């Protein structure tokens, strides 16, 4: 099958969002940080795409770029397209973008303790988005807000609307943040580490909530996280990011069981496992490259135990292992096949 045919096949599912060759840079006193260096992925209707990677790999910058939340200056979308509904969000004027923000694409933030405004009631924060976008009256918006609080599992919604953020627990606050993000019934929900700030029992509840909401509303979720446990639980597809680039993307099974990139393997090996008691954790040696001056070749070459000469000089091209499983590693090149048979 040629690549063109493969693309055609994938296109049979409905694409909600396409990111093409996204480059984001930040000007700082120390120079220009190339935070995202050519990220491309598609998001399909009703799926959960997890973007995983260590801190500073550009996963949050990618999500902020989609959301139009890159502060400009110092940030800048240098190159690439973010296509939603046939329109390129990265080049849209702010006013037009505001019509999409919160309405078609919305976002959940990491820390529910700081994501809610301490001086406004929950009711106001829930309803202001839908009142702006749909022009609902106060009563209609309130009715909708009560529905949403019921949906995310907050008891006594009517009284709770009049309360402030500090009157809720962390898990409850995250439920409210989710309700705010979903009140306009968006097509795409970007969740930036939605469970990181919560304790484990609450995490499980919030993940269940995600699953049930997705089933009910059919939204597509981009889940930004470094928690592979969360990914295993709710993701359909996974994109692994490293040094501002996607290095491997595929279905959950592809990434967990049929992964091809040494970094993906390293990442999975550094997760503690309860079923293999004797095995020691294997951290990846070295540190991620300096994004002020990113390497010319593969970003992972310096830390990669299998690095070849070519890795340091030429950026690896995309290799399609299956139509959905894409890897950026020279090992997958035809010419390198056989070299690593022993591994």
């Amino acid at each position: 099958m040629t690549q063109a045919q493969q693309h055609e096949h994938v296109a049979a599912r409905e694409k909600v969002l396409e990111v093409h060759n996204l480059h984001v840079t930040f000007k700082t006193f120390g120079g220009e940080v190339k935070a995202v260096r050519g990220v491309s992925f598609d998001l399909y209707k009703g799926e959960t795409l997890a973007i995983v990677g260590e801190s500073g790999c550009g996963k949050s910058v990618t999500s902020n770029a989609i959301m139009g939340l890159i502060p400009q200056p110092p940030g800048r979308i240098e190159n690439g397209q973010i296509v939603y509904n046939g329109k390129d969000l990265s080049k849209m004027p702010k006013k037009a973008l505001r019509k999409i923000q919160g309405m078609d694409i919305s976002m959940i933030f990491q820390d529910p303790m700081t994501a809610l405004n301490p001086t406004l009631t929950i009711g106001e924060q829930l309803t202001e988005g839908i009142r702006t976008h749909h022009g609902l009256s106060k009563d209609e918006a309130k009715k909708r807000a009560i529905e949403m609080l019921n949906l995310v599992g907050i008891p006594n919604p009517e009284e709770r609307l009049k309360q402030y953020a500090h009157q809720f627990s962390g898990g409850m606050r995250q439920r409210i943040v989710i309700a705010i993000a979903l009140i306009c019934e968006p097509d795409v929900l970007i969740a930036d580490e939605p469970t990181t700030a919560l304790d484990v029992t609450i995490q499980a509840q919030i993940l269940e909530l995600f699953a049930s909401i997705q089933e009910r509303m059919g939204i597509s979720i981009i889940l930004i996280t470094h928690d592979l446990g969360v990914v295993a639980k709710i993701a359909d597809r996974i994109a692994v990011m490293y040094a501002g680039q996607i290095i491997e993307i595929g279905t959950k099974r592809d990434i967990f069981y049929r992964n091809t990139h040494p970094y993906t393997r390293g990442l999975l090996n550094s997760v503690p496992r309860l079923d293999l008691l004797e095995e020691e954790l294997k951290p990846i040696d070295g540190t991620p490259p300096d994004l002020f001056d990113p390497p010319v070749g593969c970003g992972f070459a310096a830390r990669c135990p299998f690095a070849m000469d070519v890795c340091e000089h030429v950026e690896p091209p995309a290799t399609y292992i299956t139509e959905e499983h894409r890897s950026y590693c020279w090992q997958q090149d035809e010419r390198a096949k056989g070299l690593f048979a022993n591994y």
Partner: protein
Amino acid sequence: MVSYIIKRFLMMIATIFIIATLTFALMHSIPGSPFDSDKTSNPVIQQNLEKFYHLDDPLPVQYVSYLKAIVTFDFGPSIKKPNETVNSLLERGFPISLELGMITIIVACISGIILGTLAALRHNGLIDYFAMAIAVIGISIPNFILATVLIQVFAGQLGWLPAATWSSPKHMILPTLALATGPMAIIARLTRSSMLEVLTQDYIKMAKAKGLKPWRIVFRHALRNAMMPVVTIMGTMLASILTGTFVIEKIFAIPGMGKYFVESINNRDYPVIMGTTVFYSAFLVFMLFIVDIVYGLLDPRIKLHKKEGETS
């Protein structure tokens, strides 16, 4: 809330009582008496006068009658101005001082908040530099210097505005400007720095992600949170504006309380000293109480009824 107000009210009374007692002690520890500057040196007349004003009573007795005067709010006649009572002086002078003070506060708050907010929104831009330059100038120039410069320029050379008195809105412009510039500068700086901090908060990012209009984000989400430090300094600022009115009143020949206040101390006019001091401190304590209430209204996390009452 009601129990907080009652508690707070009792604390206010205690505060005023302490101020009154201190004033009494200080007043009588200054050497001299109201009649020192009188031409007559006849000891008999002196004695009769002292007897008339109960100044020959032992201090504890005077203290008790002084407290009685405060409670009944009748401070009796002025010693140096025989035709006036303290109450009539207050009635005449205080409304004018209050007017000057209140206009100043309002002008300083509104202009300071607007200037600070604009500076924060255009951080490191032209407006920011301009606003901060004004703020530095405003903080460093004392109001009496500014007042004389304003008179010289706008009343003297340009002749646009009257130089003195307090008879029409036009007359109010220069004194208000002179008095409001300092507080405005402080408020502008404070608003700017707290606004800058608030604008980096997650909830502002979240408001942006909702697709709200920028003005709504600033006014509804940011400004209220940024106002907390401004409200905090409001209390002390009120005190400085109130005493600032004395100087400005003198420069612009405004017939407010300032003149009587200063004169009364020079003349050891005991009833006027205690009347004005107690009245002003009561006013200030009350304003601080209002500030605390506003605090609670701005930030729902501050629960007034649970807080222990405090003397401010």
